[in-house]
Each structure stands twice: as C-alpha cells, then as structure tokens.
C-alpha cells in the first residue's frame, strides 16, 4: 500500500481505477453483492411460497383474539385476549422462572463450590460427583424427568403429601399457604419504612462518629419496633390463606404448577453445577496469602471467607457467571417441551393457530436478543463497579 500523499498527486480517474482494482475492495464488494442476491432471492421465494399457502403476513395478527388458555400467568389472562397479551404473559413467565432460577442456581452453586473446598474428603467427592454427573446429562432429559416425576411420582390430591402443615405436594401441583394483606397492611408497612429510615440514620451516625457502641442490637430494634407497635395497635397486617381440600381439589392458598416446579428444579440443578465450577475457580483464584493474612489477624475462618475471599473472588466470578445466567435464561426456552407457558411455548401455540411462522419465530428471537442485551448491559455495569474497587 502506498501512503495517502502518493494518491493526491495522480488524477482522480486513475485514483478511482486503482481503488477499484484493489483486492480488499473487490472481495468486500463481491460479498455484499452475493449477500444482497441471497437475501433478495429468499424474500422472492418466500413471498411466492406464502402467496400459495395462506397469504397472511405482517404483525397485524397480534391484535386478534387468541383462543387458547395458558396454564399460568402473572397478569390476568384468558382465552379471548389478544395474541399480544399472550406474548406478554410468555415473556413474564420466562422472566419469572429465569429470575428465580438465577437465585436458586447461585445458591446451589455456592454450596457445592464450598463443599468441594471443604475439609472432608467425603463431602468433596460428593460435590465433585454432583457436578460431573449433572453437567454431563442434557438439560432437556432432566426437565422431562422432573416433569414426569412431579406428575406421576407424587400422590393424588386426596392423598396429598404434607411435610409441613400448609404445604401440600400433589400431582396437580404444589399447594402453599399464601399471605393475604389485611386493612392494616399499609399502616404496618409505613411503620416498617419509618423504622428502616431511623435505622439507616443510626447507621450513618455510627459510621460518622465512630461511636463506641455495638450497632446491631439497637439497629435491629429501631428497624422493627415501629412495625411491631403498629401491628399491636392496628392488628395483624397479613393473614395466612391455608389451602383446604374441598371436593376434588384444593381451594385457597397458592398453587405452583408442576411445570413451573419442574422448570425451576431442572434449570437450577443444571445451572447450579456450572455455577459451582465458576465459583470454585473464583475462590481458588484468590491467593492463599490473603487467607493466611486474615487468619493471622485473628479473623474467624467464616469471616475470612465472607470478608476477604468472597469479595475478591467476585471479581473473577462475575464475567463467567453472567454468561451462565444468560444461558439459564435462554435455556428456559425448553419449557416448550414440558408445557410451561414461556415465550417459545406461546409462540409455538400461536404459530399452530395462525400459521404465521415467520412472524412468530422472529418474535422469539427478538425477545431473546433484547433480554440478552439487557442482561449483559446490567452485568457489565456491575462488573465495572466491582473491578473499580481495585487499587
């Protein structure tokens, strides 16, 4: 390649000719032409194929009435609502299972990782075995297993299993007590808020002045005292709605469907194994000298873990575990196989009803792309914050 100044001396015609004969220009141009041809060709074929079959295209169907019910929903939904609303329900269900799965899988991962680093050979081997087995079995198989187990392995409603009063395990789902807010709910919550503000003030003052008293007893009292007084004066803020066996089913309380339970169990157990490896690598990545220094300062081993190892390990853990969370969110799409009404399931039913495959599949992809982008943005910010503490 010649320096730019060399071009300026030659006439424009020659410059253009030189540019056009350059290999990188030609190869890129060829690539663009081929790509345009390919896209144009597929649009051409697709439109002729569509014209033959139904001819319906576009996203107008989103405002038509859907005729299917969805098993569960965070917002009120029933057959006769629009397809658009059905998709919103799907997105919310995906977010629900992903959010809870992320929390639970992190918890499982932490426990298994600590287990692998424990002093006991038996525990170490056991946790190692868990990781090796669970990671090597396809998630779909695990989901199908849990789903079948919850449907067939649990007793019928009449012989419901009840490990604790108020919790009933049946093949139609989990029945739990649910809290019902009473009239005094608002007052007690306001009192709790006042308590939290007071306690934060105390915490701030304690930090500013380095006052020589222990923070926790007074802080906790300040937090909960107003709420306790309010409860005493205005009555209990919530009552418990206990599920009752009436006729053929339970009424009252809340129901967790076997599909949701299977999804949550499968996703958390599977991703938990991956998270365990990530967390273990993070903890091992903190140098041994840090632990020894903490111990020699007289800190309790638990304190060393909480205050010295974990904060530093977080820096190593966050990037790979954010990837793992994204994977969990994407893998929640397997709900379609066991009938959990998440995005792919909703899109799949819609596709069967409207036969607008192109639109339904683009909606799935678009939603997941947006979710991925948002998640990676949030985690990037978190990552930046945790690495900025470095000195």
């Amino acid at each position, binding site marked *: 390649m010649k320096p730019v100044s060399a071009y300026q001396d030659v006439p424009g015609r020659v410059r253009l000719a030189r540019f056009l004969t350059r290999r*990188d220009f030609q*190869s*890129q141009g060829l*690539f*663009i032409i081929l*790509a345009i041809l390919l896209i144009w060709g*597929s*649009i051409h*074929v*697709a439109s002729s*194929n*569509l014209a033959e079959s139904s001819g319906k295209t576009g996203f107008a169907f989103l405002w038509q009435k859907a005729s299917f019910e969805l098993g569960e929903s965070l917002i009120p939904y029933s057959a006769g609502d629009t397809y658009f609303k059905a998709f919103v329900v799907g997105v919310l269900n995906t977010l629900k299972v992903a959010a809870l799965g992320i929390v639970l899988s992190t918890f499982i991962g932490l426990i298994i990782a600590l287990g692998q680093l*424990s*002093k*006991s*050979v*038996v*525990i170490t081997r*056991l946790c190692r075995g868990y990781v*090796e*087995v669970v*990671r*090597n*079995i*396809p*998630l*779909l*198989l*695990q989901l*199908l*297993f849990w789903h*079948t*187990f919850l449907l*067939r*392995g649990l007793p019928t409603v009449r012989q419901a299993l009840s490990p604790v009063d108020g919790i009933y395990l049946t093949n139609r789902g989990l029945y739990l007590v649910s809290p019902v807010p009473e009239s005094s709910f608002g007052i007690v919550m306001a009192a709790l808020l006042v308590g939290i503000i007071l306690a934060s003030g105390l915490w701030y003052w304690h930090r500013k002045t380095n006052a020589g008293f222990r923070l926790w007893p007074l802080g906790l009292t300040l937090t909960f005292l107003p709420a306790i007084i309010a409860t005493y004066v205005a009555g209990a803020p919530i009552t418990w709605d206990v599920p009752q066996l009436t006729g053929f089913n339970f009424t009252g309380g809340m129901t967790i469907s076997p599909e949701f339970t299977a999804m949550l169990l499968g996703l958390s157990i599977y991703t938990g194994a991956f998270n365990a490896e990530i967390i273990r690598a993070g903890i091992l990545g903190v140098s041994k000298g840090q632990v020894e220094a903490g111990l020699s300062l007289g800190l309790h081993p638990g304190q060393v873990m909480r205050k010295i190892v974990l904060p530093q390990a977080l820096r190593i853990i966050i990037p790979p575990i954010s990837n793992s969370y994204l994977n969990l969110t*994407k*893998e929640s*799409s*397997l709900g*379609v*196989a066991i009938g959990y009404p998440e995005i*792919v399931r909703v899109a*799949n039913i819609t*596709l069967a009803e409207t036969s607008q*495959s*192109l639109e339904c*599949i683009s909606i*799935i*992809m678009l939603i*997941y*792309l947006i979710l*991925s*982008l948002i998640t990676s943005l949030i985690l990037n910010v978190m990552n930046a914050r945790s690495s900025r503490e470095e000195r």
Partner: protein
Amino acid sequence: MTELALNRSPWWQRLISEVTKSPMSTILNVVALGMLLLIAIPLVKWALIDAVWTGDSGDSCPAGSGACWAFIGSKLRLILFGRFPYDEQWRALAGTVILVALVVISLNPVFWRKWLLPVWIAGLLSYGILMWGGVFGLSYVESSLWGGLPLTILLTVFGVAFGLVISVPIALGRQSKLPVFRLSAIVFVEAVRGVPLISVLFMASVLLPLIIPDGFTPDGLGRVLIGLVLFLAAYMAEVLRGGLQAIPKGQYEACRSLGVAYWPMILKVILPQAFEMVLPAMVNLFIGALKGTSLVVIVAMMDLLGAAQAALADPKWIGFYVETYVFAGIVYALMCGSISWYGRQTERSLREMREHSNKN
C-alpha cells in the same frame, strides 16, 4: 517428603490418613459418610438388590419391587436405534462405529498425516452406504427413520465437523481489517449467541422450506443439521477468535517476511496453533453439542432421548419412566465423560509432542 510417602502407601491407608487429618475433619467425614449411606443404601437396594432383571411385561415388576431393568432390556433396541428397521439395525450400528472410529482417530495428533483424508472419504462413503442403503443388496432406509443413538452421534459429529469448518471464516472475518467482513461476522455471531438453540432449530425446520425453492429443500434431518451447524459455528468462531488473538504478532510478521501468502499462512501457521490453544474449550463445545442434539426431540425427531420417550408409550409397560431416564442419562453421561477424558488425553499427547520436538 510426607506426600511422597503417602503416595506410596496403599489407597486405604491414604484414605484413613486423609479422613483423620484433624478432629474437625474426622467429625465432618463421619457425618457426611452417614448422610451418604442414608441416601446410598436405598438407592443400591432399588437399583440392584430389589431390581427385576427379566420379564416381558409390566406385570413382572410389581409395585413394591425395585428398578425394573427388564423394561430397559425389552426396549433396548427401540431406545438405542429408534425406528430404524429392526432387521437392518446392524447397519446403523456398524456405520456409527465407523463414524466414531474416524472421529477418535482424527482427534489424536499422532494420526495427523496425509492418509487421513482418503480414510475419511472411504469412511464417510461406507457410512452413507450403510445408513441409506439402496446399493449392494441393502434395502433403502429413509433418513426420517434414522433414530436413537446413531442419530444423536450423527448430529453431534457432523454438527461439530461442519461447524468447525464454517467457524474458521467467521473467526477470521471478525478479526479482519475489512469492515464488511468484520461487521457481518459480528452480527452473525452475536445474533446467534443471543438466541436459544431451540429457536434456531425452529427457524431451520420452519423457515428453510419457505425460503428455498421447492425441490431443493433438504429433508427434516438436513434442516435440523443446518440449524445445529449454524448455531455451533457461532460459538466455535468465538472460541477460535480467542485462540487467534493469543497468537503472537511475530508469527504473522515472520510469515510476511518469508513471503508466505495469506491463505497458506492462515492454514499452515496460524490455525494449527490457534486450534491447539483452544482445544479444551472446543472439547467443552463438543460436549455441549452432544447435549444440545437432544433438543431435536422438540422438532419431532427421534434421537436417543426421543426414542427413550417413545419406549415409555407402550401400554404393556406403564410407569417405568425413572428407569428409562436413568438409562438414557447414563448413556449421555458416559458419552460426555469419554469425550472430556479423550480431550484431556489429546491435550497431554499434544504437549508431549511439543516438548519432544522442542528437544530435537
């Protein structure tokens, strides 16, 4: 010194000294062992002692007994081969053995010789003849009838192989100085990595017939394979990019100063080193691909998992889902385990080869 002595002593002595390192660890171990036994004893009782090994219908496994392996025994051919014609199943077995042998050979650097290419061509040819048939007096078997373990292995092997081939230009494109190539590679990789595999499979099986003119549309297996290949290629390109970035600039400069052209440089100098660097990550992707093939069940294909589910539908045997899923799970775990074991072996032999050649 003590460690050396420990390593020489028999395993039970090592175990005992490990368990009784400190009073705290002894207590922990004993408690953990107790809990382990609490789980393990009923499990062993169910899986081995109370298990029913023979029988020809669900009646041979009464409610109180343990695992009903008789069910797996009577459904073994269905679970392993799916709907492949019963009398021809030896062909699927032989073909799959050839395919696996080819992969095992090619992953070992000792066999990276010129004769590997003709061996692959001959192997693939005999694989195709065995699976499809239609020549040499073998009856023709449609690809929609392929199923079970051969289908799982087929999808994995060809998904990974084609994925690797496609991932090379994508990874190079992402590294390229030319904006068109770089941008297209970035868009492709990020778009595919942002969506779940199942949506890519849906797209392949629903959209491909729409955008390809009639008559040229690949069959169901081909469509799923295309989806799988595109999906894997994006992930592999990302892994390969890591390897490409880790290659010192001096390698490129040395090539240029020796007058080596672009493609020979990439193929003979850069890529071999890059692949070697990312081998562990590629092995992980291989395992992910194997697990990912189970998703074809959702687009109505009968791989190992699909065939296992089909076995559950027999009205003569009701309710032996635990045995079925445990069996399928063990098969998957064994396959994944052996891939990662073989990957570690390859890594080690590569390292030894490198050290050996460095000494000379």
